[in-house]
């Protein structure tokens, strides 16, 4: 029931916000309230969740289409609960930011944001292949309009490439879903067995690779992340990309053990290439959003390395890194939005010197940046270290690539920090540009605090993500 409530609350909220003809501020406030209630619900769910128990929890299952074996079946494992937690927190922060900025047409905007939240939670909770597909697709509908209507100058091109890429992947996945479900006689992820069909696996893998995005399927990323409203970009990079990781963890590996193993070499190489290539692009990017966008791509490569390490360390690290990167990336995007709002541009060349007289901004950007570059002791460092150690068994070369990625992360993060805060004040930085306002701090600080908690205690996530705290075993048993 709690899981269903987590899915339905934002959707119901979206309908209420869309239909009730309230004044602008009330509409926006109502949407933010719903998002906060969603966080509260998630905390209630986490409190009831028994992290030592290995089975599916908080589950509900109801027949939907009996003849094909389709059911409305939802529930959580440790890792999906953590991913959902990151999702609801990031969504609340994003909606809060939109309220603060005062987006146009608030009824439509906030209804779509809430709908997006509901679809993301449904994706992480679904234990039925078709329900997963439906939620995965349903995310696209609000994203399409959010980018297309409220985006920047080149939003039309951005939505087009984004939709073409993701739909190409989704439709391949639909073919795979049909083939897998019909062969198995059921679409339930809990009841179905495994398949050794490489083609069906490829349909899923490509869809996830596009959503993440992994190299070389990242063509939609630069435009979409640059043109989307900044809080939508935050949700995209922080949460939507993680649905791909969930897909690999819940479907790709457990349902297709042999094809996943056969193709792991290719995927590991591509993920490693994406990590290095994304980091280099982030280092070269001329604007704030470019840096955060490409760093997000690099991080997705890193997480995929952890997933396809196939061992406890790698898988635990991948989940920890997913949660941590979700929070970091959302904080960074919101901070980028705040800087852009003050300066009217995100061009690194026009920024600089913002630390002087703006202590709050300087501190928050510095802390978020330190966590992003995985300074030892941070949650991201723990995640990257676990992945590095985990992937070592697949080949020492991959660990070197991860280490290289960590170094490159330091390079591009330090570059962006100094471009904002230090050097001489850039032409776009006005003397009177304000420090972070209390409301803005209130949006970013909770995520930073959560990251600090995770930094102090990474085991909170990494030791409670998989049944019996044995990730490899859980995956190879198909979570039974």
């Amino acid at each position, binding site marked *: 029931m709690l899981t269903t409530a987590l899915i339905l609350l934002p959707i119901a909220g979206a309908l209420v916000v869309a239909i009730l003809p309230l004044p602008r501020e009330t509409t926006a406030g109502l949407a933010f309230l719903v998002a906060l209630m969603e966080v509260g619900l998630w905390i209630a769910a986490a409190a009831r969740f028994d992290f030592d128990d290995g089975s599916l929890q908080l589950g509900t299952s109801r027949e939907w289409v009996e003849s094909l074996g389709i059911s409305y079946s939802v529930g959580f494992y440790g890792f999906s609960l953590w991913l959902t937690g990151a999702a609801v927190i990031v969504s609340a922060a994003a909606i809060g930011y939109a309220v603060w900025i005062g987006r146009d047409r608030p009824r439509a905007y906030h209804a779509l944001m809430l709908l997006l939240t509901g679809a993301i939670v449904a994706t992480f909770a679904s234990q039925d292949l078709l329900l997963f597909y439906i939620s995965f697709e349903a995310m696209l509908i609000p994203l399409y309009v959010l980018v297309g209507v409220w985006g920047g100058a080149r939003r039309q091109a951005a939505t087009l490439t984004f939709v073409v890429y993701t739909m190409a992947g989704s*439709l391949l996945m639909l073919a795979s879903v049909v083939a897998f479900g019909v062969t198995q006689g059921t679409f339930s992820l809990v009841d179905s067995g495994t398949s050794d069909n490489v083609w069906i696996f490829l349909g899923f893998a490509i869809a996830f690779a596009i959503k993440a995005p992994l190299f070389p399927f990242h063509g939609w990323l630069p435009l979409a992340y640059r043109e989307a409203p900044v809080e939508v970009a935050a949700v995209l990079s922080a949460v939507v990309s993680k649905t791909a990781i969930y897909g690999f963890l819940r479907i790709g590996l457990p349902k297709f053990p042999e094809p996943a193993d056969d193709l792991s070499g290719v995927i590991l190489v591509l993920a490693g290439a994406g990590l290095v290539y994304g980091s280099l692009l982030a280092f070269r990017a001329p604007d704030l959003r470019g840096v955060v966008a490409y760093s997000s791509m690099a991080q997705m490569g890193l997480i995929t390395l952890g997933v396809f390490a196939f061992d406890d360390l790698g898988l635990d690290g991948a989940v920890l890194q997913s949660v941590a990167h979700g929070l970091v990336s959302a904080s960074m995007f919101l901070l980028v939005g705040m800087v852009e709002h003050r300066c009217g541009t995100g061009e690194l060349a026009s920024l600089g010197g913002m630390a002087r007289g703006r202590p709050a901004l300087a501190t928050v950007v510095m802390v978020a940046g330190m966590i992003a570059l995985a300074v030892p002791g941070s949650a991201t460092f723990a995640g990257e270290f676990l992945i590095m150690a985990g992937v070592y068994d697949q080949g020492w070369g991959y660990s070197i690539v991860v280490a290289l990625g960590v170094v490159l992360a330091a390079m591009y993060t330090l570059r962006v920090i100094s471009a904002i805060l230090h050097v001489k004040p850039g032409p776009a930085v006005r003397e009177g540009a304000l420090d972070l306002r209390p409301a803005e701090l209130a949006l970013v600080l909770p995520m930073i605090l959560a990251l600090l908690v995770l930094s102090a205690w990474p085991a909170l996530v990494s030791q409670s993500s998989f049944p019996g705290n044995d990730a490899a075993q859980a995956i190879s048993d198909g979570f039974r």
Partner: protein
Amino acid sequence: MIETPSVDWLALSPTVALLSASGLALLATVVVPGWMRKAVTAAVVLAGFVTAAVLAGVVFDESATPEVLLSDSMARDQLAAFAQVILAVTGAVVVLVSWTERRRDSYGEYYSLLAAAGAGMVFFVSAENLMTLFLGLEWFSLCLYILVALDTERAASLEAGLKYLVVGGFGSAVLLFGSALVYGATGEIGFAEIASAEPTDDPFLLAGLAMIVAGLAFKVSAAPFHMWTPDVYQGAPSSVTAFMSAATKTAALVVFLRVLVTAFPSEADIWTIAVAVIASISLVWGNLAALAQRDVKRLLAYSSISHAGFMLMAISADSARGGEALLYYLVPYSAMSVGAFAVVAARERELGRPVTLESLAGLGWERPYHGIAMWTFMLGMAGFPLTGGMFGKLFVFSAAYEAGDWWLVLIGVAATAVSLAYYLNVVRWLYMRSGPELRLAPAGGSPPRDLALGAALGAAVVVTVGSFFAVQPILDVAADAAASLPF
């Protein structure tokens, strides 16, 4: 004392209800004074369609085992009744859509012909031999020829009527010739009798089968028999287009399924391939051609060709699963199709000129209700979740995959990918245009409030979205209906 044959009036009742409505409407055109003619005829025909829907529902309930009636010329089974419910409800919704359509004093004729066409389709779907098949086909086709050309002051309407008459007549002739060949080869006209006649590799039989398939493909508007569709859909009055796109397709596809499965089971290995090929061509051509359209009615016409492809895919599976998939698909498809044309009709009346993509600009923000409805229909046609269109595609793909036609599934998936480009393009025009593009030239004054059309849109949206959440009940009914056929 003359012996009268026993007539199953219940089975005939939907047809009779619509015929009576048609006759009454025609009578009212003569008797009722001009100022209330439109209201009276519309009300009579609306009542006729609603009665027919209810009666068809009763027939569905009462016909658990299929029977043949009237010298084996008509079937009384759940398949026919299922299709009749869709047809009658579609007709009723179209009456609502057409309420504010401007025409030059031919309201009585319009509504009367609409009911007569509905009666013909309702009769057509229960055809059980080649004679009633042809009779039903001509019955509703003749009504549609006139309906298409009813706006006599518009050259486009007249042109569309003529094209439809010529091409449709050709299609009917092909079907009739095919029927004659099949009769010549087997000596039978009843579907079940044809199936049980001596199975031969008679070239006449195969030629006849091919011509029947081609003739029905004309009515389904499947490529390469679709040439009339864009022109006719574009030229016809929008409410008639809505009716044709939903009802004609429903009737023709159900009969397509019935004829092939009942009459030609021993030729199944041939016609499944033929239908699969027609389906692929429709999918490819319909979707590619739709990309190039600016006129929304033409765009929807090509989209309807591609949907014919999806539904033929289900028929080519030649299985109970395929039959269910087709019948399920028809429910959301009819709703989306009528709804989309209704939005176009509303815009057309408001602007007083044909609706192109450009003239949809900003509709979503100006008329949120129409915008959201159109958005729902476009996403539904593209097969997005939260609409029945997704399950329709899923069931069709599952049926095709089970039948071993994985290549057909891949074509379907590719076609869906292409179709997104133009469906989402409509959404883009609705919502994502700004500045000067939004300045419109309305025909004058604020747009008329059109409660009837609003109600029709509401019904279409409810069916489109409802068929997503209530899959199982609809699928159960569709499975019962498909069970009337000897799979």
